[in-house]
Every structure is written in structure tokens, then in C-alpha cells.
């Protein structure tokens, strides 16, 4: 596009506070990893996370000993917390790749300060999610390999018509590609850590991880190519994973599951949850490590905007569900909606509407968008809302399906909760270890944002294009 149109946009605030040099950026980020001391908040949170992680161990151990019966699941409610948590975590695991890949392809340079730990978050969320498809089965020791197609002495294959098999591949691929993407991005930074550390053992460790990166022109050229390719690969995955996850339900005939709107509605929900989680993490981190000048208000505001947009899509999804329910003229669908809103679990539905529908609307107003405390709280509320969304979809649809005679209630047990909070523990532990052991912000990419880097070379006009609606 020609420069005239560009000039119509108000000049966007900088993505990095002025006054930074290559050196200062590198120093500031790598100090978090190499520096001797660490904020006390880190220790406390990690402690809590680790505690919960142990709760998870116990819960899963007991589960393997006794069976699914320790949870509240029953007939008709065959799936409950297990699959809710699965979908919730996998949803959260969307933002990372989205931010890194799609925003990279869109040349949104504001992504650089958040993409690294967003990717890490993705990996850890997927790790939490990937646990459930396995442990929610009655005989995980068999499910672990019977779900994979391999030539076997039984002469039988998995049943490829089942969405659960699709899940295995979708999640598997997603996890692999995200991991590669994340690691590739790390390589140059690992190299700089290698070069900066005084400790020879660490140096060797980082060195090994840096795979012999020397920062030669060839390296950079190959690197850019590889990184771009991976970005290209993971972009469709962002859409495919949650689409496939939504098939777990859409393929079923259960009223409240059997809907064509599920794929887009799930993907939007996932990005929504993902961004909320990024905010939940970014805000404390930037405070804890004084990164306000890297993760600027502009970042938070942009994320808030994305959250608002995806939130609106999700609300559209709810509206459509209700509309279809009524419009279908199908007594089961109609009852399902009626039961969701007024049934014994009605409160979950209205809480969901409040969390996901009402609260984010505050983001239309700049004052809220730029208030970190509110953003943090809002992000937490949205996470709760997204969890409730899965509860509503799974439990309230199942507990009263077709034959009134088989209607029943579902009550979670202690072990349902301990498993759920346990996974949060796993997530927190991994996340906090990550920020301690690896650069949570991409050093070399931040360097490209330093003004010194900007002056060189022809400026790409699209580089500054930004989400600029709203802005109260």
C-alpha cells in the first residue's frame, strides 16, 4: 500500500520503551536467567505450584489403583471434569502458537516481547491437556498404545471413524510442531546465554542446547527460513486442533453437542482463553521482573483487544446455540437449552454468560484496557468462564439427554478437584521453572526493535500496522 494511507493512522506507541540499546536489552533479559538473585514472589508461587503438582501425582496414582470410580462420573454423565479439563487446557494452549506464528506472518512486531513465554505456555498447557485423554480411560495402560495404528498380533487397527483417534493425531502433531517452533526460536538466545555466562558447566549446557550456533550470516539465513516454515506449518494447526477437539462433541448425537457451529466457536473460544492466560502470566511477570519497558501497555492493550474480539465471537456462539435450539423445532434441542438455562445446573450457564459475555465488554473502554489490575482480574474471570463453558457443554448436555428414565445428576468428588488443581500445579511449576532457566523474552528479536536496529535498511511500512479500533 502507498504511504499516504499509512499516514492516516495515528503513530502507534512504541513496542519498546525508548533508551534501550542492544546491550541493555540482552543484559536485562539474560540477567533473569543468569543473575544470582530471584524475586521472592517467584519462590512462593513455584512452591505452591510444586505442592499442587504433588497433589496431582497422588490423585493420578490413586486413580490408577482404583479406577474412574473415584471421580463423580456416572451413567449418563460419562465425561465430566476429565474432558472439561482436557478441552480447557488445550484451548489455553492456543494463544502461544497463534501469537508466534500468525502474528509473525502478519509482521506484527509487538508480538516479539510476548511470543516466547506464550509459546512456552502453549507447550505446558498442551502437556496438561494431553494427560487427560489417557487417564480418563478405564484402562490407560491399553489405551496408551491401542489408539495408535501399528501392525500388531491382533490383526486389528484403531477405528478411524472415531473422533478420539483424530484427537490423538491432532494433539500429537500440534505438540510436536509447537515444541520445534519454540525450540528453534530459542537457539540464538541459548547461544547468547552460552556466551554470557561465567559458569563453564552452564556454558557447556547452553552450548550443547544452542547446537553450535555461531550467528554467521548462513546461520541467520537458514534460521529465518526454518522459522518462517514452521510458522507456516503451525498456523493451520492452530485451527485444526480445536476443530478436531470440537468434533469429539459435534460428531455425537447428544443434544447440545450435535452442532455444526462447534469448530469455529471452539477455535475462537480457545484463542479467547489463550489470550486471557497470556495476560494472566504477562502482567505478574512484567511486574516481578520490571519488564514494563519490554511488555508495554501497548502489548497489554492489543491483547485486551484480541480478547474482546474473540470474546464477542464466543458470545455469538452462545447466541447461535440458543437460537438453533429454538429454531431446530427439535424437542430434545429445545429442552436442552431450556434445561441449560433453568435446570439444576442453570447457575453454571448464567455464570458462564457473566464471565465470558458481560465482563469482557469493559474492554471497550480504554481506561479498563490500560488498567493492569483490571486486566489481570478480567483474564482470570475469563479463564473461569471458559472452564464453565466446557462444563455446560459436557455435563448439562449429558445429564438429561433423551430418555427421562435415565436422567441423573452429576456430583464431582474430592478427586475430581484434586486432579484439576493438580494440573494447574503442573502448569505453574513448569512455567516458573521456564522463566528461571530460559530467556522468557526473545533476546535477539527484541534487539531488532531497538531504534538502533530500526534506522538500518528500508523500512517496511506494514511493520507498524496495528489494531487501532476502539481507543476511548
Amino acid at each position: 500500500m502507498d504511504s499516504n494511507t499509512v499516514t492516516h493512522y495515528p503513530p502507534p506507541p512504541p513496542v519498546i520503551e525508548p533508551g534501550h540499546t542492544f546491550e541493555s536489552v540482552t543484559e536485562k533479559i539474560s540477567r533473569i536467567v543468569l543473575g544470582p538473585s530471584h524475586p521472592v514472589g517467584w519462590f512462593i508461587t513455584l512452591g505452591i505450584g510444586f505442592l499442587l503438582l504433588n497433589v496431582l501425582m497422588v490423585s493420578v496414582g490413586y486413580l490408577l489403583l482404583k479406577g474412574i470410580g473415584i471421580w463423580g462420573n456416572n451413567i449418563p454423565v460419562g465425561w465430566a471434569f476429565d474432558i472439561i479439563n482436557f478441552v480447557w487446557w488445550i484451548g489455553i494452549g492456543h494463544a502461544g502458537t497463534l501469537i508466534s506464528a500468525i502474528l509473525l506472518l502478519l509482521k506484527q512486531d509487538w508480538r516479539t516481547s510476548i511470543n516466547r513465554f506464550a509459546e512456552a505456555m502453549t507447550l505446558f498447557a498442551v502437556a496438561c491437556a494431553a494427560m487427560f485423554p489417557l487417564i480418563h480411560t478405564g484402562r490407560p495402560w491399553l489405551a496408551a498404545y491401542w489408539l495408535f495404528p501399528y501392525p500388531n498380533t491382533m490383526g486389528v487397527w484403531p477405528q478411524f471413524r472415531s473422533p478420539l483417534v483424530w484427537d490423538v493425531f491432532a494433539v500429537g502433531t500440534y505438540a510436536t510442531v509447537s515444541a520445534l517452533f519454540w525450540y528453534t526460536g530459542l537457539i540464538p538466545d541459548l547461544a547468547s546465554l552460552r556466551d554470557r555466562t561465567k559458569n563453564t558447566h552452564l556454558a557447556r549446557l547452553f552450548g550443547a542446547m544452542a547446537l553450535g550456533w555461531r550467528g554467521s550470516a548462513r546461520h541467520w539465513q537458514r534460521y529465518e527460513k526454518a522459522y518462517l516454515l514452521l510458522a507456516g506449518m503451525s498456523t493451520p494447526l492452530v485451527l485444526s486442533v480445536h476443530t478436531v477437539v470440537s468434533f469429539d462433541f459435534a460428531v455425537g448425537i447428544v443434544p447440545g453437542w450435535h452442532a455444526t457451529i462447534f469448530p469455529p466457536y471452539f477455535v475462537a473460544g480457545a484463542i479467547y482463553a489463550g489470550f486471557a492466560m497470556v495476560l494472566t502470566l504477562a502482567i505478574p511477570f512484567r511486574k516481578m521482573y520490571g519488564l514494563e519497558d519490554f511488555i508495554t501497555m501497548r502489548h497489554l492493550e492489543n491483547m485486551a483487544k484480541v480478547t474482546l474480539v474473540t470474546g464477542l465471537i464466543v458470545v455469538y456462539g452462545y447466541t447461535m446455540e440458543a437460537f438453533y435450539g429454538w429454531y431446530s423445532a427439535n424437542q430434545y434441542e429445545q429442552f436442552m437449552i431450556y434445561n441449560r438455562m433453568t435446570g439444576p445446573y442453570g447457575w453454571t450457564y448464567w455464570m458462564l454468560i457473566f464471565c465470558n459475555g458481560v465482563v469482557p465488554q469493559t474492554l471497550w473502554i480504554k481506561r479498563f484496557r490500560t488498567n493492569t489490575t483490571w486486566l489481570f482480574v478480567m483474564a482470570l474471570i475469563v479463564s473461569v468462564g471458559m472452564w464453565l463453558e466446557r462444563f455446560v457443554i459436557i455435563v448439562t448436555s449429558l445429564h438429561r439427554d433423551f430418555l427421562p428414565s435415565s436422567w441423573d445428576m452429576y456430583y464431582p468428588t474430592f478427586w475430581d478437584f484434586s486432579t484439576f488443581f493438580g494440573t494447574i500445579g503442573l502448569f505453574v511449576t513448569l512455567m516458573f521453572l521456564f522463566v528461571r532457566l530460559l530467556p522468557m523474552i526473545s533476546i535477539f528479536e527484541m534487539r531488532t526493535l531497538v531504534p538502533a536496529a530500526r534506522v538500518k535498511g528500508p523500512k517496511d511500512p506494514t511493520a507498524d500496522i496495528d489494531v487501532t479500533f476502539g481507543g476511548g
Partner: protein
Amino acid sequence: MSQIFHRHSNIYSRLSILGVVLFALTLAGVVAMLHLSGYNTRQNDYVEQPIQFSHAHHVGGMGIDCRYCHTTVEESSFANIPPTKTCMNCHSQIWTGAPILEPVRASFRDNTPLTWTRVHDLPDFVYFNHSIHVKQGVGCATCHGPVDKMPLMYQQAPLTMSWCLDCHRNPARYIRPRDQVFNMAWERPADDPELGARLVRDYNIGSVEQLTSCSTCHR
């Protein structure tokens, strides 16, 4: 600062990539082979029995028909292990003093059953039925091997599910005329390639769909 790695490490790192791949492949291979091996399927291994009963001698040598001992093979799922009485039918006359037969005599005397070790043992969730296989022209030797040449009984076939399916998916390859079922020496006539297909027709053997329905063997 000085190099922290020796320049050779490049080659090591490259090799290690190859190494990982090779290692993974070998591991998979080993597991698979172990799984299929006789160790796992108990194929071809002799098992200790209370009496060194020789099928080779009784069937191969004396030419005793299978059904003389395995009486219910044609009417029941279970082929029946002969009661001590059956042994004594002859051995009250011959080899009456043979020390090797003492356990048999003891069993008959004190009315305490002999305890044999299973050689062909399918999992409990498999409901195999001898009578129908015998009726439909599956020879004893087809699954049990050349019993008449086995001094001690051993399991010749792997008895894995895919092994069962080989026949259930294409019975024509394996079945023989009913009158040849108990014939250990029977061989598929080379001059009559159509035999199998014809028998499947004549014996009105179930469709492959029926033979491979899960509930045919599992309940």
C-alpha cells in the same frame, strides 16, 4: 573467550542425531520381536508333565485315533482330557509294572486326579469351540501340528489373534475334507487347487463377515 567445545563435537552432534533415530528403530524392533517370539507365545517350548506322555508313541506308533482319548472333541467346545480310567483301559493289561506309569496307577488307586499342564492355552476371553472346527474340516494338525511326531507335547502355532484370523479371513486355504480331519498325514492335493473353495461351499461355512464378527470368538 575460549571455545568451550572441541571442534570434533560438531561431528558428534551430527552423529547423535543419527544415533537417536537408529536407537528408536532398534528399540521398536526388539520389542516387536520379543512380542512375536516363542518366549511370549510359548511356541515350541516343551512343558513338564506329571507323566512323560508321548503322543509320538501312542498316535504315531500305535495309531490310536485322537478321539479315543479326546472324546468330546466332536460335541463340545472342550476336547476333553482323558480320565485316568482311559489310560488304565490298556495299562491295566500292558506295562502294568512300568515305573513311569506309577502316577497313573496311583491316581487310579487313590482316586486322585492327575494334574496336567495346559499346552494350548487361549486367553479366558476367547471362546474357542473344538466341535465346530472339527465339523467344518479344520484338521487337528492344522492347529496342533504334527502331534504324531511329538514325543512331548508342545504348542506349534503362535495362537495369536492374527494367526486365528488368517484362517477366519480365508478358510479355503486351510480346511480339508471332513474324513481327513483326524488324519495327521493328510496333505493338500496339489492337483486340486479348487478343493478349499469347494469345501467352503459344501460345508456351508459362514461368510467372512460372520467368521470375523467379534462375537464369534469374544463375549
